[in-house]
């Protein structure tokens, strides 16, 4: 296994697919036109952007005019939340979300709280899934927005967004979902879900980093987030990241074409992994619902040990994995998601997230199942919390 890396962190980011890069290359070389210009070079760039928009619309079952390109999932979330809050502040100042959202949702909401908005954070059940009834109970007369993620980035649980959207619609409340982890893993159909806004990010489904999209249902009241030039029909200014957008378009096309096959393959590997870990290691728990979770996600807590040490030891063995969310590692607080499903601080610190991708094989799982028990017991022997 010398030199080879087994990459088990596909929820953090994915490698760019060769076919995706191939489609991007012309726009990184001779097709360098600015899509806002009217000569041929510019028109070609514009065409490429519009083809990508078509592909995203098709993948999500949306209309072409409902797709707006952004710089990633974070911008999409910020735009959705701040844009709706500011545009509807005369109607009310209350927003509902859950305790397990990504920081790209929670932190904009904290910021809005500082500006006078009020936010209810609905807790989730111990299996990491929110009860729609509890969302319903949180609704007030001045609720203007509900934001619930489609799939959680740490524990992979799939949220009942369709039911929540129905409740929102009955009350005339705008509903946003962060589908950054869902797209490319499970079917995502904006009409079926019934959401008004949906965020996605290309690098989570084998597309490039730094480009994403926001679906905005026609008629949704929302302010622009970045103001400036007339790009994106005056709703998202800035010279388009043409190569990135082309990559996003191709990546989402590929991801949705082979979705069921891909998901079935990963689910099989995931189940082998979960069964293996639970049977080979003691004092371990699986975080998040056993079934209603992404096909590529497994998240464990190993008692008495700390996550970063675990990751470093895995890294030495050529295994790339994550503890808590990739976007918050480097932070020293335990994952807010694991605390939200009821874990003690110490246990939350000992978590391991394995997220599979199309490059993973049975052998990779075997290798992990071989080295993980050793590493866990080594760390436990070092731990003052563990009495062997």
């Amino acid at each position, binding site marked *: 296994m010398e030199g080879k890396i087994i990459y088990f962190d596909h929820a953090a980011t994915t490698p760019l697919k060769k076919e995706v890069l191939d489609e991007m290359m012309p726009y990184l070389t001779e097709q360098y036109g600015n899509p806002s210009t009217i000569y041929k070079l510019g028109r070609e760039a514009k065409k490429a952007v519009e083809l990508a928009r078509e592909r995203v619309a098709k993948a999500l079952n949306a209309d072409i005019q409902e797709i707006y390109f952004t710089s990633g999932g974070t911008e999409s979330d910020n735009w959705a939340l701040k844009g709706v809050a500011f545009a509807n502040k005369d109607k009310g100042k209350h927003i509902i979300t859950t305790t397990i959202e990504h920081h790209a949702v929670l932190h904009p909401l904290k910021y809005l709280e500082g500006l006078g908005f009020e936010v209810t954070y609905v807790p989730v059940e111990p299996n990491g899934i929110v009860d729609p009834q509890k969302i319903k109970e949180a609704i007030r007369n001045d609720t203007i927005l509900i934001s619930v993620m489609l799939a959680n980035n740490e524990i992979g649980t799939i949220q009942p967004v369709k039911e929540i959207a129905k409740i929102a619609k009955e009350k005339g409340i705008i509903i946003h979902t962060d589908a950054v982890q869902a797209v490319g893993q499970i079917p995502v159909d904006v009409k079926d879900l019934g959401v008004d806004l949906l965020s996605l990010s290309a690098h989570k489904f084998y597309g490039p980093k730094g480009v994403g999209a926001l679906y905005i249902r026609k008629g949704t009241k929302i302010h622009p987030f970045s103001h400036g030039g007339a790009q994106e029909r005056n709703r998202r200014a800035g010279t388009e990241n043409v190569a990135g957008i082309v990559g996003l378009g191709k990546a989402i096309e590929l991801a949705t074409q082979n979705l069921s096959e891909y998901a079935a393959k990963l689910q099989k590997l995931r189940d082998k992994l979960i069964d293996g870990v639970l049977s080979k290691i003691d004092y371990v728990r699986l975080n998040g619902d056993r079934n209603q979770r992404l096909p590529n996600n497994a998240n464990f807590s190993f008692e008495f040990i700390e996550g970063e040490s675990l990751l470093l030891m895995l890294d030495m063995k050529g295994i790339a994995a994550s503890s808590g969310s990739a976007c918050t590692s480097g932070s020293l607080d335990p994952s807010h998601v694991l605390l939200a499903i009821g874990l003690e*601080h110490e246990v939350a610190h000992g978590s391991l997230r394995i997220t599979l991708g199309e490059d993973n094989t049975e052998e990779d799982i075997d290798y992990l199942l071989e080295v993980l028990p050793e590493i866990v017991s080594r760390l436990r022997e070092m731990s003052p919390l563990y009495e062997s």
Partner: protein
Amino acid sequence: MYSEKVLDHFMNPRNVGEIENADGVAQVGNPKCGDIMKVYLKIENGIIVDAKFKTFGCGAAVATSSMATEMVKGKTIEEALQITNKAVAEALDGLPANKLHCSVLAEEAIKAAIEDYLSKQKSKNTN
């Protein structure tokens, strides 16, 4: 982010374990941060003749535990009390900025274990 030396002390930590009937023992830690360090000292004639640790924490916590226990061995109590977290971090060729507190923990653990020894001595003497 971690230096070669940190990684070496993390992967091959020196002095892991417990000392039975240790002369000084202390556990320090910050449950919110998820790190706990327990240090055991064997002290003879005012000199630290052995030191062991158990640590629940990040790579830096393990490495600083390892380095700090190495550094105190053979030192007098007075000398050991002079060891700062900066000295431990420097001996490891530095730590990332957000990991300096882990070395503080190591300094605290050593000091607390020595204090435990001293207070035990005192109660022995007063008995």
